[in-house]
């Protein structure tokens, strides 16, 4: 089971995403931003970090990286794609996901152990969770405020495309406390918090994040 993890200049959590794939039992495959090549992977993770320094807008420059044309094509043909934090921002900038992520309402970078509720388990990335399950994973970003116009938000809610929501105080001013969303088809998921940092007791607040990576392995097998 080959799960590709893209490294853009300024990607930071790519190594952690690869470790998470490995701990879940998959084969992590490093993908380089400059290559027009997905190396026959079965799923793709766009990791967290500050691609191109997050200058201009988070994800705005990475979106134009050569590898993204392949990622976009794969996403449109149903390959599971997970964007974590900066990866979520890249997916929004690429219009693979609706909405955008803006500066946290308190204007500070914020690194906390965040409680989430999983609301959609029909995506290839969340099938190992229960609907309504609460998990705790790290949240760490300065521009994690999810925004979209009312119509879009209503459609997302209506179509059950809100994958995860913040529990308790809204940590960054995200509209409707949205922490993650999926595309119509469900194969593309964007998530602000970092499941790849909750895969080992030793280094994470929990191991609640591992299921994102076991889910996709299962999904790809049964696909």
């Amino acid at each position: 089971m080959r799960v590709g993890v893209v490294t853009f200049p300024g990607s930071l959590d790519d190594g952690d995403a690869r470790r998470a794939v490995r701990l879940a039992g998959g084969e992590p495959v490093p993908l380089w931003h400059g290559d027009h090549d997905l190396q026959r992977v079965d799923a793709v993770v766009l990791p967290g970090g500050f691609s191109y320094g997050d200058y201009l807008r988070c994800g705005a420059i990475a979106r134009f990286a050569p590898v993204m044309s392949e990622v976009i094509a794969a996403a449109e043909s149903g390959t599971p794609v997970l964007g974590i934090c900066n990866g979520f921002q890249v997916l929004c900038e690429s219009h693979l996901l609706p909405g955008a992520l803006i500066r946290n309402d308190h204007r500070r970078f914020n690194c906390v152990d965040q409680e989430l509720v999983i609301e959609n388990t029909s995506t290839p990335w969340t099938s190992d969770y229960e609907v309504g399950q609460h998990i705790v994973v790290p949240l760490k970003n300065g521009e994690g405020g999810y925004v979209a116009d009312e119509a879009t938000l209503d459609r997302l809610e209506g179509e059950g495309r809100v994958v995860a929501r913040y529990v308790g105080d809204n940590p960054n001013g995200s509209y409707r406390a949205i922490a993650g969303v999926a595309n119509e088809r469900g194969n593309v998921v964007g998530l602000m918090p970092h499941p790849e940092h909750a895969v080992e007791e030793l280094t994470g607040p929990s191991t609640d994040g591992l299921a994102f990576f076991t889910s996709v392995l299962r999904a790809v097998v049964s696909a």
Partner: protein
Amino acid sequence: MNLIRGSAETVKDAETTPDAEQPYRELGLKDDEYARIREILGRRPTSSELAMYSVMWSEHCSYKSSKVHLRQFSRTAAEGSVGSSALLVGIGENAGVVDIGQGWAVTFKVESHNHPSYVEPYQGAATGVGGIVRDIMSMGARPVAVMDPLRFGPADAADTRRVLPGVVAGVGGYGNCLGLPNIGGEVVFDPSYAGNPLVNALCVGVLRHESLQLAHASGAGNLVVLFGATTGGDGIGGVSVLASETFEDSGPAKRPSVQVGDPFMEKVLIECCLELYDAGVVVGVQDLGGAGLSCATSEMASNGDGGMHVWLDRVPLRDATLRPEEILMSESQERMCAVVEPGRLDEFLAICARWDVLASVIGEVDDSGRLTVEWHGETIVDVPPRTVAHEGPVYHRPYARPAWQDELQASGPGSLPRPATGDELRATLLDLVASPNLCAKGWVTDQYDRYVLGNTVLAQPEDAGMIRVDDETGLGVAVATDGNGRFAKLDPYAGAQLALSEAYRNVAVAGARPLAVTDCLNFGSPEDPDVMWQFAEATRGLADACLELGVPVTGGNVSFYNQTGDAAIHPTPVVGVLGVVDDVRRRVPMGFAADGEVVLLLGTTRDELAGSEWAHHVHGHLGGRPPQVDLPAEKALASLMASAIGLVSAAHDVSDGVLAQTLAEMALRHGVGATVALDDVCGGDPFVALFAESVARAVVAVPADRVPELEAAATTYGVPVTRLGTTGGGALVVEGLFQVPLGQLRTAHEGTLPALFG
């Protein structure tokens, strides 16, 4: 002669106009220093040579005032000690390197960026982090963590509200963007830092023994490659005493001494460097920090075995109007300099290209024994490199015990009214845990990424930061920094030792074996004999203590001139201790985790409140003698903690924390309370028990059935043990005196910084 206008002055010009006036005084050089340069060169220096000598002989680069005192630190690396046998690279290189076993080595260093952070808090702090990270990179290591010991003026002062949020955002903005977890630091408030915030930054790097790199330019014919950011006019004289007015008046543009950092450039530079090291295409490497190219070229050349020739006009510029003198002095960030064999150059450039890193050959190693710099075909510098880099002036500055020292030590806290009743003690505890210095630092540390890289085993608010080095074996390192300016003011010799004791204890308590030391010495003006005495005492104290504890000083940094007018800051030696952990899975966290465990106090509590947080916060009092230093006791405690790994389920050192604070932090960590009795602590004086700051103490929680084992071990190492009580419940209960529900304790402890800074 004007430094800026006109064409570059050549060596010939200097020879033909021996008596031309030179602005050496404006450049911070003394008459005798200028005379020495003339004598070294056998002629007057060119304007470029003058620029080079002036920055390299500045206090910051030459350590001219501190050198004679820092020499003592070589004693600490003397044969025999645990630490010294593990020392692969000692003081003198960009950072010290310590062997931690299994072929792994660690390098770490702390540095200051105080003044820039006052002028431009965000960028000053950000570039401070950037600078220390490049030092670590230049040793061949992958940077794996940062820490930030910070000092500010009063928490409620208007200027603190300007400086602190910017500094914290800058430390986070740069470190987070580099993908380096922030695993610890300090936030301390004291009026003496008003107008002189201390922004110290520490970086830890990891390498395999064989990847060690040194800043040596050896092998005639090898090429000198400058790579990373382009060179601009920013930061000229940023660290040197160069009067920037000299430039503002006559320069084409202002030459600000504050720089803007580009963390993205640095992140790419890190990955690029590591690929270059792995490919084995680097003979020697040096980061560009203070004094820029002047420093990098002269140091690499004099550490090498020959000389170096530089084509200065090949340096890629961001500002085409820069003069050669400015290019030599520019402190533009995110630049590195490497020595490469001609045969490997293409490989080198290919790797840089893959990372979009600009790289240019700007020079060549030769066997002339001289550093020569050429500008459009003309020689503008021709000097013996050692005289620039290593043979700068050495001052024996006058120093004397300040007239006020005796009086300060005489006016102890004895007469201060002490809380006695349960209610008074309870109120004092709530007041102290909410005080700016003891309150929770979450408002600060939540702005730092502590998870990135996935190897952070312990981070704030734990006693020490701990990082996993090897996934398989669990080998890791722990680092803690401490420094107490109030203690150092009362007694600089003891103050420096107390800083070391606490950092050493923090590392030991977390389950690590203390191995090595780095230090950042923040002081006032060396021209003030009082300050110089403080410095002499502090260095002597630190050296003596490092020797006794067997932990060598591997490197550090000196920051002088931290003062407003003639009011100097408290002498503030910040000490970082690095320890090794054979298996991070056996780390010892600080929080009570389970009910019904036995809470024990290790160590001896004395009636020591001079310079304490209580005296400072409650009475605004500073006087007397600091807590007695007891290095044998610190050693014994460390050995006990090492032997008790697997036995204690939680441990937290008692320091400026004090027992009250320590118990509160342990209870709040996981919301598990405790009930304790203080009758057996220090003759049953509950105030002293709760608020004295005696050293060599820790509180541990142990499963009831294993207490005898711990007590036995404690006896073996001669560490006094006092049973305090048991964990459990939703409150901190001090029997017969008072109790505080954890909710109320938390509100007090965590509310302070958010209330002050939003």
